[in-house]
């Protein structure tokens, strides 16, 4: 089932002064359950593309459909609500709330969704178990390693039951072992629970495990390859 579709997606920065074309007429589609890596050199438009399909930035031209919803036409407040219920994010720098414990960080997004407290608690515990942090539930991020923090971020991204997860260079700050652990968890979630994962990455370890690799060059799709893994 198609989950994301972009049509002639373009983004030009500094439109008035010195225009920089970050994305140029990108047409892409993503199916449910994909494990996709978006790769390309620095400045190729990977992050811009992720921002566009994540509803964090608006394109200069083109349309983005998430399911049946054309998100570029949504107002800011509707877009925030749309993100809350449909998209999960994993950031390069984890971006956990340092004042909350691992479990509270995971629960927080469900609180924003006004989930029933019992269900919220059970889901937070379950998700942290899935990412192998059942013994770190009441620990604050400052007491966790980078890899553990990123696993909490993955659990948080899953907490809202999103239609897909966008991960921007999720392994960039991790050592090799932590990166492998994280990728194992993400692959397992993808295979067992059919969770759609889209990465922007430079990391060959991620690229080697992706079943689809889209290469962007100068804001345009250079290649789009599928792999049996």
């Amino acid at each position, binding site marked *: 089932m198609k989950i994301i579709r972009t049509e002639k997606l373009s983004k030009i920065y500094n439109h008035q002064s010195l225009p920089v074309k970050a994305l140029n007429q990108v047409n892409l589609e993503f199916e449910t359950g994909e494990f996709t890596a978006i790769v390309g050199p620095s400045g190729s438009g990977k992050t811009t593309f992720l921002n566009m399909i994540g509803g964090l930035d608006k394109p200069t031209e083109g349309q983005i459909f998430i399911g049946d919803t054309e998100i570029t036409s949504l107002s800011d407040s509707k877009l925030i609500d749309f993100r809350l219920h449909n998209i999960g994010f994993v950031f390069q720098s984890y971006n956990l709330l340092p004042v*909350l414990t691992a479990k509270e960080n995971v629960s927080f997004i469900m609180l924003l969704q006004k989930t029933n407290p019992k269900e919220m608690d059970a889901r937070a515990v379950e998700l942290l178990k899935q990412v192998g942090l059942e013994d770190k539930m009441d620990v604050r991020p400052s007491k966790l390693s980078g890899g553990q923090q990123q696993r909490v971020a993955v659990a*948080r991204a899953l907490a809202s039951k999103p239609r897909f997860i966008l991960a921007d260079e999720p392994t960039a700050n991790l050592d090799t072992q932590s990166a492998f652990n994280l990728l194992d968890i993400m692959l397992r979630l993808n295979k067992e629970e059919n969770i759609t994962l889209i990465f922007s990455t430079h990391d060959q370890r991620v690229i080697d495990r992706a079943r689809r690799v889209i290469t962007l060059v100068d804001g345009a799709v250079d290649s789009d390859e599928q792999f049996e893994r």
Partner: protein
Amino acid sequence: MKVLLKISWLNVWRNTRRSLVMIVAVSIGLWGGIFVSALSSGMMLQRFDLSVKQHISHIQVQNPEFLKDRHIKYGIADWDALKKALQADPVIAGFSGRTLAGGMLATANMSVGISIIGIDAANEASTTGLDDNILEGNYILDEGRNPVLIGKKLADKIKLQPGSRLVLTFQNIEGELVSASFRVAGIYQTSNGIYDESHVYVRQSDLEPYVGEGSTINQVAIVATDIEQVQALGDRLVKQFPEYSIRTWDDISPELAYLQEMAGMMLMIVLVIILFALSFGLVNTMLMSVFERTRELGMLMAVGMNRKKVFAMIMIETIFLTLMGAFGGMLLGFVSIQLFSKTGIDMAAVGGDSLNDFGFPSVVYPQLELSFFFFLMVLVIVTAVLTSIYPALKALRLKPAEAVRKE
């Protein structure tokens, strides 16, 4: 909301030292404001109480002609009738009929212009407590022939002491100058040095032979049991004795009422200035907090925390920070007021007798009404809310896509 409160509370303590510095700054600022307000309020209230008690009383009754031309001949026409009415009124705590004469006080070395007040010593004591103000010598209740009470300032100026002799010269009813010899029985001191320097008290019975045929009461000072009753009492007396000028304390001394109003206004201005100054510190603290958390705020907006909640979070943090400081300041203020309201603060050390010259007591007892603290709390909350707007708007202007990647 509960989660927002919790996160905001925890965020306040992320940088403990910075938050504590701000809380202490707010506390000390408000403490200073509160204590200065209490001092000023205490000073004004004491001045009011002492002026009313020692000098003007709550109500004065006079012959209207006396107010135009302060001649001793303009007295209360039917003193007995007025006296009877005053004695019968239950809200009157005391009254004193006085004979007033302008004149000269002369000693062997010096002469000065003064006001001579002829009193019924017992009534004056129960009305103004003049007997409580005697510093040296005795009150003139049972003294021998022609005793006089003079103010300390006058006594110091012309070097008189109890037992000294002096001559008072004044006009009688006919307008002729008469002189009589008096002996200093006692030296009094009120809260107003200028008054003490220019007023002497003698017994009416000693003045009568010199003033002329029949006694003349030029002024009746009345003290009510409760200041709240003064206006009604005044209205009643006006109806009962339309032939007299009947004035309440605020008519007699409008500057007293004005001073109280002005003091209230000054207190507000001082507090608003303090809070205004503190608000810059608060804005700075919150801006630093927002800038330090750019990535985190970007993440919150990215994952779906709406702008209202982000705004509320920053606002709640500012309110927490301000309220903690405010509570500290109020507590310090309350405790210090309680402490000094018993012992008083002797301002003579810094102002010499100059405070006393303007009718202010030199020992000030700070005091503030409880309602002031409630009002202050409202003012603090308003300041916190206003202060939080700028940092909160800064947070809202963040673009999540850029904010989450900020180094």
